[in-house]
């Protein structure tokens, strides 16, 4: 192909990533069912907690319970949403497309980047929808403009990191069903944190884990930023976690991809 010769390797990788993103977004729009399910679950959870259990949970903040629970629900939603990426990557590795892509010299990074980018788009849409529902049921955030931007940025960083982690899980798992179990993993990470109730109200043995796992600082930061409360160092810890997860997932997936296609 004469036109390819003039494109630099970086330009090619970028072009390939964009094409793969377009494909992935296209497939997503054909699979609205799955998106709907991954969206409904967090929204249902939010409604259940706000209307059924919320009254019994004392958050000690003086805010309505919905204000407390929204950040955690957003992360849960991102977790469920990105499990679709694990499934998609897993299916691609088994399907005929992977041989085609390899013979076209499309690198693993571009293939995964396409999945992660479309996952990010998908999760951004779900985030907006969840926020919409939250506003309907009485969520009244009061962030400063920089606070809102920081919250959005942090959530985006979390979504990208979790999506790339999901893509990595898609490479390791043997079947799409196993890859789909990524959403359980995200649930087990989100529940033992301050998603639905303050960590101090949980049994003592779990405090260590709950305080020092990635989801907690992200939730604490979002909550503080959205309600314009002091956040301390939480955003930086959260950002460090996201960067760490992203870099680890990228390195690991690169290696796994080479092994699986050798």
């Amino acid at each position: 192909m004469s036109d390819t010769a003039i494109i630099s390797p970086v330009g090619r990788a970028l072009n390939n990533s964009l094409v793969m993103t377009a494909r992935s977004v296209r497939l997503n729009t054909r699979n609205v069912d799955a998106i709907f399910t991954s969206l409904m679950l967090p929204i249902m959870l939010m409604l259940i907690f706000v209307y059924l259990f919320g009254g019994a949970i004392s958050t000690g903040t003086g805010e309505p319970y919905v204000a407390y629970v929204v950040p955690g629900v957003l992360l849960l939603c991102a977790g469920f949403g990105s499990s679709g990426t694990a499934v998609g990557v897993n299916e691609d590795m088994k399907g005929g497309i992977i041989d085609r892509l390899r013979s076209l010299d499309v690198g693993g990074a571009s293939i995964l980047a396409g999945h992660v980018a479309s996952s990010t788009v998908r999760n951004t849409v779900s985030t907006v929808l969840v926020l919409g529902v939250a506003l309907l049921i009485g969520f009244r955030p009061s962030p400063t403009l920089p606070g809102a931007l920081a919250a959005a940025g942090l959530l985006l960083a979390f979504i990208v990191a979790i999506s790339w982690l999901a893509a990595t899980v898609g490479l390791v798992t043997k079947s799409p069903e196993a890859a789909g179990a990524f959403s359980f993993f995200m649930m087990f990470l989100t529940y033992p944190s301050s998603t639905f109730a303050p960590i101090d109200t949980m049994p003592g043995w779990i405090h260590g884990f709950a305080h020092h796992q990635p989801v907690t600082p992200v939730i604490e930061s979002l909550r503080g930023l959205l309600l314009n409360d002091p956040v301390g160092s939480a955003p930086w810890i959260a950002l460090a976690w996201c960067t760490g997860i992203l870099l680890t997932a990228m390195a690991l997936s690169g290696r796994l991809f080479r092994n699986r296609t050798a």
Partner: protein
Amino acid sequence: MIRATGLEKSYGRGDERVKVLDGIDLSVERGTVFALLGPNGAGKTTAVRILATLADADGGTATVAGYDVRTQRRQVRRAVSLTGQFASVDEKQTGEENLRMVARLGGLSRPAARRRAAELLERFDLTAAGRRLAGTYSGGMRRRLDLAAGLVGEPRVIFLDEPTTGLDLRSRQELWQVVRGLSAGGSTVFLTTQYLEEADQLSDRIAVLDGGRLVAEGTATELKSRVSGHRLDLVATDAAAYERLAPLAVQLSPDTLTLGLPTDGTAARVRALLDEIDPRRRDVASFTVHSATLDDVFLALTGRGRTTEEPARV
């Protein structure tokens, strides 16, 4: 266009290690159709994957379109297309989207990709199915889409790994037409097949692969002169007659008193052969004539594959 010397490849480790390719030399000229003929498990796919840079050889060297498959992987990939035994199409996209995606990955602009996709759908008779998901395609359509995807980048060398295995007769013949078209268009085609007839119909030269070694190489005519093209199956009148005829046979089934002899299938030759082996017209009860199968080719070329325990007599 393709040169390979001493290609070797083993799979497994320790005691389980098997040599799948054991020193293969190949040479394919530009613009010709080359067939690698061999039974299941002969190592055809392995050879093709090595030449198309999807697998590494343990030993030997190969160049494709002038590039080394080991050190100039990228250039080779740009010059070739591979249509595998299992179609590499994206089942979740339509035929048209598949081709557009491949074109975009090849660096074509959006409008150019659209044009190229339309052109290829037309050429492979897929225009009507272009808007359906490839997952809903029949085996033959999938194979054609796969082939079309391989041609988006205008490759100089086209690898087809068992392009018609598993297809019905009609799809097979459609695919043959496609291969003839490619060859007429000046492409170099390297195909693998289990069917002698297919190799015969399509290719300029044939190499026969068996157990990881090339057991014969030549034009279809040259090979056929070695295997006669047809087999005359005789049923002997009794055990004594069977014993008298057995030394002449290439295939023996003592249980049914049946023996196979090579022939070219013409009436004249069959009549002469019958007179020659059974001048008293007592030993042969009945006969049938079959086209030589791949089994017969291997029988003739390797002396293996007999149906009896007796040592080979070819």
